[in-house]
């Protein structure tokens, strides 16, 4: 096994072990919230579990998967050795230390503040220091991605950067912008409070800084799925990418529109006026742009494949696709979940209508569908696709892979569709134990049990996934070299700098962030709002 492969595998395994553990916690949480498991756990245990589930899924699984995948793309799409491998390993070790620090602090019950923090509640400082180390490790990765692309451009003057790498660098740039808000909140406000240097916190400011990160972070998680849609799926299906330009534009849109929109997470907050909320709602509507471009361009690419395979009629090409291929199957299921999640998102962002579902199970359903569903199922597909290259061994049978993907899809839908309904009924979030003696809450019982069933299917799928990867390490069938990245119908020969780099887009991000977030943040600096006393939960 080569060094770069080991680097990728180390990241992936850390991500997937955290994922499997978090899936178990998730299933347990659903159990204690349901009428079946009522009163079997204490709030202390429950919030410890929720914190660990959130940290493992949202920070560990996503960040380390994306880092590992980025290193993989940098080597395979650019056909050159990775720049700064020593730095990459160092960052990995720092990240592992950070993860360990964070998870141990949570397990000791000294950080039951959930992964989205809620200052003035503060956890033990080790919790935040661990997370800051994880973020620092990911910054090293961002720099390495930028360096790799720059080196490739020097070696290949005038040639278009391969789409997979362009998209990976887009994600790195996005992540650098994204983490500014959270890092500022942690370093400037929360950590000094946790360490006892300050006794009070400006809560309005901390919520605003976190909102900066809160939307874009989801696109950071989502972009690997889109990289797979654009660069791996058409090849796996036996077709070509319909438009390379649209692919590049999609990732550019992600970069510029996922940042100046975070206030839509604060629509129900009292610390901002309607005006800036509306501006960011309008910008949020344009976050749909990359997704609606994708749901046209990718089906068009699949249609090429389906018709080449003999599909006829308006929809006949769909049946002709190679659904037995995990990548194609996962993408199909991913799109269905993206559709439901997208509709939920449209409702969330709709200004006043947010009041109908804010902080209800509707929102939990939405982000489980988008991240846990649409994005993570593509993480599975990517892992299945590239594991043979990393281990040099081939899947003996695709049947358990397909089972795993179907289980995940059915589980996710069974879990989240009832949650949407319960959200409309007013089932609120972050509850350790529901009071099923109340007639309204009792009426939710059956649906909660159905969603628990979905949660158990998800757990089964998660464990099957880890098993499917683990057996490959001891597999006997050697991998045959197979091309991975799709060609475009019209491979670009020469591109404007705007579609081959990020200079212009960084300027536009800066400008729109200044306009959209400048005043909302400056108001706290110009006239600090009354602070709240730190409540130490450690």
């Amino acid at each position: 096994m080569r060094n770069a492969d080991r680097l990728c595998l180390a990241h992936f395994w850390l991500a997937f072990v955290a994922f499997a553990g978090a899936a178990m916690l998730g299933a347990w949480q659903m159990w204690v919230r349901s009428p079946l498991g009522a009163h079997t756990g204490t709030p202390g245990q429950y919030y410890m579990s929720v914190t660990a589930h959130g940290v493992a899924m949202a920070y560990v699984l996503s960040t380390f998967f994306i880092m590992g995948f980025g290193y993989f793309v940098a080597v395979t799409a650019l056909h050159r050795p990775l720049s700064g491998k020593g730095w990459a390993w160092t960052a990995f070790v720092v990240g592992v230390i950070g993860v360990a620090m964070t998870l141990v602090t949570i397990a000791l019950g000294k950080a039951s503040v959930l992964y989205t923090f809620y200052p003035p509640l503060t956890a033990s400082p080790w919790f935040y220091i661990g997370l800051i180390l994880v973020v620092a490790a990911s910054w090293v990765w961002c720099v390495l991605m930028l360096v790799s692309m720059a080196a490739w451009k020097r070696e290949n003057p005038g040639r278009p950067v391969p789409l997979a790498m362009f998209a990976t660098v887009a994600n790195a740039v996005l992540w650098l912008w994204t983490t500014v808000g959270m890092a500022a909140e942690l370093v400037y406000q929360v950590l000094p409070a946790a360490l006892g240097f300050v006794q009070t916190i400006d809560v309005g400011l901390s919520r605003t800084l976190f909102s900066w990160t809160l939307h874009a972070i989801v696109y950071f998680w989502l972009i690997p799925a889109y990289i797979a849609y654009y660069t791996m799926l058409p090849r796996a299906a036996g077709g070509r990418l319909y438009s390379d330009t649209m692919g590049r534009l999609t990732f550019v849109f992600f970069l510029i529109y996922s940042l100046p929109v975070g206030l839509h997470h604060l629509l129900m907050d009292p610390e901002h006026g309607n005006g800036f909320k509306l501006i960011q709602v309008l910008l949020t509507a344009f976050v749909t742009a990359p997704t609606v471009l994708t749901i046209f361009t990718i089906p068009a690419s699949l249609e090429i494949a389906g018709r080449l395979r003999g599909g006829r009629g308006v929809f006949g090409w769909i049946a002709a696709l190679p659904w037995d291929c995990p990548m194609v199957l996962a993408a199909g299921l991913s799109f269905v979940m993206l559709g439901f999640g997208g509709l939920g998102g449209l409702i969330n962002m709709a200004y006043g209508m947010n009041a109908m579902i804010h902080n209800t199970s509707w929102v939990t359903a939405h982000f489980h569908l988008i991240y846990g569903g649409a994005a993570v199922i593509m993480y599975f597909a990517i892992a299945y696709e590239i594991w043979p290259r990393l281990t040099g061994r081939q899947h003996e049978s695709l049947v358990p892979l397909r089972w795993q993907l179907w289980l995940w899809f059915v589980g996710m839908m069974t879990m989240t569709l009832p949650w949407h309904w319960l959200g409309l009924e007013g089932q609120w979030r972050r509850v350790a134990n529901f009071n099923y003696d109340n007639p309204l809450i009792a009426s939710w019982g059956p649906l909660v049990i159905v969603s628990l069933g979905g949660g158990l299917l998800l757990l089964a799928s998660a464990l099957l996934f880890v098993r499917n990867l683990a057996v490959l390490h001891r597999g006997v069938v050697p991998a045959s070299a197979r091309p991975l990245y799709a060609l475009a119908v019209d491979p670009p020969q020469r591109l404007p700098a705007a579609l081959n780099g990020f200079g212009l887009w960084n300027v536009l991000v800066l400008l729109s962030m200044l306009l959209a977030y400048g005043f909302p943040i400056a108001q706290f600096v110009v006239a600090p709002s009354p602070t709240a006393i730190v409540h130490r939960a450690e």
Partner: protein
Amino acid sequence: MSEGLQQTHERRVLGTELLWAFGVGVLVTATLSLIVFTALTRGINPPSNVERVDPKTLHLSGEFAEQNLGTVVAADGIVTARIIATQFMFAPHCIALPQGQPVTLRFASPDVIHGILITGTNVNTMVVPGYVAQVHTEFTRGGELLMPCHEYCGLGHSEMWANVQVLSAGEFKPDRDGRLTCAQR
């Protein structure tokens, strides 16, 4: 593929993509227009009362002192309810409000972040220490509703909820000071 053929392809591909983007753009604009339209005609906004208040001295203040919480009808008939969200309860823990009349709910927190919703209605706001959270609404149906805290506020979060009694005009009878508490049922 010949150069000429490729150029035609490319143009067609970009053409269809643009057409698609235009079509979707129209639909997205339609959804946004609905938001703007209802904001203009019916005054629908998310609650955004940027009114600062010191959470540390809330209990010394006039408005959010213990005796002044709850529902009050002013001389001009305006109905206001003042509610404290604190770890881990609401004060008062039952709020009586009229059906089909404009009401203003004002919330404040002396400690950490809370949030409220009233089941089956659009009443929803975060209660952030440092601010008075304010919701203007009109209840469209009567009855006993649940008002839980929907934001994580500590280990007792799950037990933090209040009742809201939405009373018909006949039942909604404030006392001489304009105050009203929940009817015992």
